[in-house]
């Protein structure tokens, strides 16, 4: 009995030093925690909070530049910081299992899944081939993979993201470790898959054989996931522990200001009261837009992939239309057809064109060549997901912002003046125009990308997952900025996202897409209150952390 009371993992005043010259002396500073068998401790924090460094310190996989300083990590009574590399290798897999964020890179692409699971058994046990292969099949069944016999022989690329993550989890738990370390295991997955994986981790934790219940150290940035699975929560900020307590205590009556801010930044699932419906004809309209990719195999037979099937959408001035869906739903394909970054294979793409005077006309640009599109492009602008890649790293921010305005005839001086005022609009200092993108944070870069889009005075702004790569607190700021800009300029906005919470807060109307088709659309308030389509209901049910 005494064994079940002692904690599996104890971290006592752990420090991990950053190399000299970094923005702070410690990546992890004075962190203490303990996890008991059968319990789940969630470590939450934004990027750069040191949560992953802490987890890698436990695994003994710290990069060489990072030196664990004073402090202790004790796994089942054994101090890990003093353990030899050989001992740590033995402990990994046997005493602690690990699940990482991206299952595709965690698996070896040229080995079958069965061999990869088997490799662990060969390393850590002296079992015979037959016993090992039975154990492999058994664990694949336990992680609920369909047709385990086939999975054993499959290569990682033949499986879906969720199935791959199940393989990784199978590898982590096959030796029945006392501790399971999960570092953002569901971040790369769709919500419905995330739900299943979270449930799987909970189940495995409960029935890991012989009444020996394993402890879970779960790293995440998502408060919704915390609400789903945590027993205890540790909130980290800038390497320090800000708050440590039970899930109820932390989520419902947070003490630290930072925790309160984090919780407040999570958008609510309840949409705000609807705004008055926009007047006037749409600025951007897609009519039965479809996109089909064809690939030929070596016999010359063509195989068609319907990425987008006859989708119709319209955006008016002052209105935000949300397109939500999981990966592969065709939402980005639709957006890219509408901005004409790719050629739709069918349907019409109509852009409102100022034909001089009052008479605006809708022009079908679906078949326009790049040259004919160019003079029209100022109308429709785009903000992309990844702020690290959406700005040319070798050009100064100012040069990036003025590019559009100069393409439409502004002189350099005019464009620079405009860029300076836009920097003010997105709350960045005008001196920033002379710096390079690498000197800005992710959120700041996203502001710059918004300023760049606004510089050619568009009437429609398309935001393709524009806040998905950002921390929640930054995300909240960018959403606020987008709303302000829309109110001020009366832009029509098309907002593509996988995040139902973000869509609820920002969009007037929401379109739900699934497998290349629009399955449901309607005013946000109505759609969130009474989702009609089966798939929409599933999507809503899977959204994590419905408790707050």
């Amino acid at each position, binding site marked *: 009995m005494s064994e079940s009371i002692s904690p599996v993992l104890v971290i006592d005043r752990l420090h991990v030093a950053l190399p000299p010259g970094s923005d702070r002396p410690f990546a992890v500073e004075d962190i203490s925690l303990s996890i008991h068998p059968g319990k789940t401790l969630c470590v939450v924090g934004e990027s750069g909070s040191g949560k992953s460094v802490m987890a890698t310190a436990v695994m003994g996989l710290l990069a060489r530049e990072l030196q664990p300083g004073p402090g202790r990590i004790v796994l089942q009574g054994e101090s890990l910081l003093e353990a030899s590399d050989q001992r740590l290798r033995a402990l990994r897999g046997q005493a602690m299992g690990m699940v990482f964020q991206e299952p595709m890179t965690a698996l070896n692409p040229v080995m079958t899944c069965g061999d990869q699971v088997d490799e662990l058994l060969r390393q850590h046990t002296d079992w015979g081939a037959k016993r090992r292969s039975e154990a492999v099949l058994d664990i694949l069944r336990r992680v609920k993979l369909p047709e385990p016999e086939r999975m054993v022989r499959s290569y990682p690329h033949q499986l879906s993201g969720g199935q791959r993550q199940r393989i990784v989890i199978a590898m982590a738990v096959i030796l029945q470790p006392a501790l399971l370390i999960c570092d953002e295991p569901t971040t790369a997955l769709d919500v419905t898959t995330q739900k299943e994986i979270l449930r799987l981790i909970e189940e495995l934790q409960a029935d890991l054989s012989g009444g020996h219940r394993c402890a879970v150290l779960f790293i995440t940035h998502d408060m919704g996931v915390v609400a789903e699975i945590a027993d205890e929560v540790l909130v980290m900020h800038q390497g320090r522990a800000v708050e440590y307590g039970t899930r109820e205590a932390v989520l419902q009556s947070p003490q630290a200001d930072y925790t309160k801010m984090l919780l407040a930044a999570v958008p609510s699932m309840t949409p705000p009261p609807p705004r008055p419906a926009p007047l006037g004809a749409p600025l951007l309209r897609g009519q039965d837009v479809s996109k089909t990719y064809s690939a030929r195999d070596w016999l010359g037979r063509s195989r068609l992939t319907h990425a987008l099937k006859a989708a119709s959408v319209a955006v008016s001035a002052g209105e935000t239309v949300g397109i939500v869906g999981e990966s592969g739903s065709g939402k980005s394909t639709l957006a890219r057809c509408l901005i004409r970054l790719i050629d739709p294979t069918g349907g019409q793409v109509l852009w409102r064109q100022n034909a001089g005077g009052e008479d605006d006309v809708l022009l079908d640009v679906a078949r326009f060549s790049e040259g004919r599109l160019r003079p029209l492009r100022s109308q429709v*602008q785009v903000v992309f997901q990844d702020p690290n890649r959406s700005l040319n790293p*070798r050009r100064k921010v100012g040069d990036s912002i003025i590019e559009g305005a100069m393409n439409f005839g502004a002189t350099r001086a005019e464009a620079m003046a405009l860029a300076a005022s836009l920097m003010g609009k997105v709350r960045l200092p005008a001196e920033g125009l002379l710096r390079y993108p690498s000197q800005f944070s992710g959120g700041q870069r996203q502001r710059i990308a918004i300023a760049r889009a606004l510089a050619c005075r568009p009437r429609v702004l398309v935001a393709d997952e524009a806040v998905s790569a950002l921390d929640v607190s930054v995300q909240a700021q960018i959403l606020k900025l987008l709303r302000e800009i829309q109110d001020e300029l009366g832009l029509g906005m098309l907002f593509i996202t996988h995040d139902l919470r973000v869509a609820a807060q920002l969009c007037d109307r929401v379109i739900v897409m699934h497998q290349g088709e629009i399955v449901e659309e309607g005013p946000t308030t109505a759609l969130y209150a009474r989702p009609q389509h089966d798939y929409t209901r599933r999507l809503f049910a899977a959204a994590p952390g419905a408790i707050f």
Partner: protein
Amino acid sequence: MQVWQLLSQRLWRNSAFRFGVLVLGVLLALAALAPFLGTVDPAAMDSAHINTAAGVRGEFAQLDGTVVAHTFWMGADNFGRDIFSRVLYGTRTSLLVAAFTAAVAIGVGALLGMLAGYFRAVDAVLMRFMDGLMAIPAILLAIALVAALGAQLWTVVVAIAIPEIPRVTRLVRAMVLTLREEPFVEAARALATPTPVILWRHILPNAMAPLIVQGTFVAASAVLTEAILSFLGLGLPADIPTWGNIMAEGRVQFTQYPGNVLFPALFLVPTVLAINLLGDGLRDVLDPKFSKRTS
């Protein structure tokens, strides 16, 4: 320009790069200062000094009849020409050919690579032509070109550069294929930036690092190829001294006077080594794929 400062610091910390820069610096200085380093006209023949041994001091009768005191640091060949002078002036030729060849191969290769990478229609035709070019051994192609064009500095440069172009084209095309999908390139398209400007402003600068590295390797192989062509008697005209033709002329008497071959080789080897090390250093620093974690 913080970026460049940081980069040059990191480059200087790389020992391969440092070695390459120092050796090349010495060679460049030797080439530039050749007339002032106790040399005589490299083409001048003094019949009094045919096959002089290395290190002999004497007087050299120049073409205009004047006689100067001269030390034959590396001896004289069977025409009575001063090897030391020929080797130093040969450094000029080698470095010129290396620089020009790299410039031509990189320039043309980058242009063709960008066209092939960005325009689907050009791609198929151009790359099949490049594949054809790559199937011909580089030295044979160079020999054929020099034979067809006649031996001059620019024809030698072109002849050495053409076989190198397909490799550069492939490299640039591969990079353009990934860069064109980058969001910042798509953003530029949405901003109505004309295609040539996109290529010049957004794609080329981001493909520059591997291109510079490739350029150093082209330069190193150009030094070698030029020497081989000259050795075969197909390179520059015989009155221009190059390491290759010094060796070719010394070859006949190699057993008696090995210096005629060995002294130019003593310059050739470190030159190629230095350029290659310089390229390795650049690659280690510029290309994150090869950068080793410093312990």
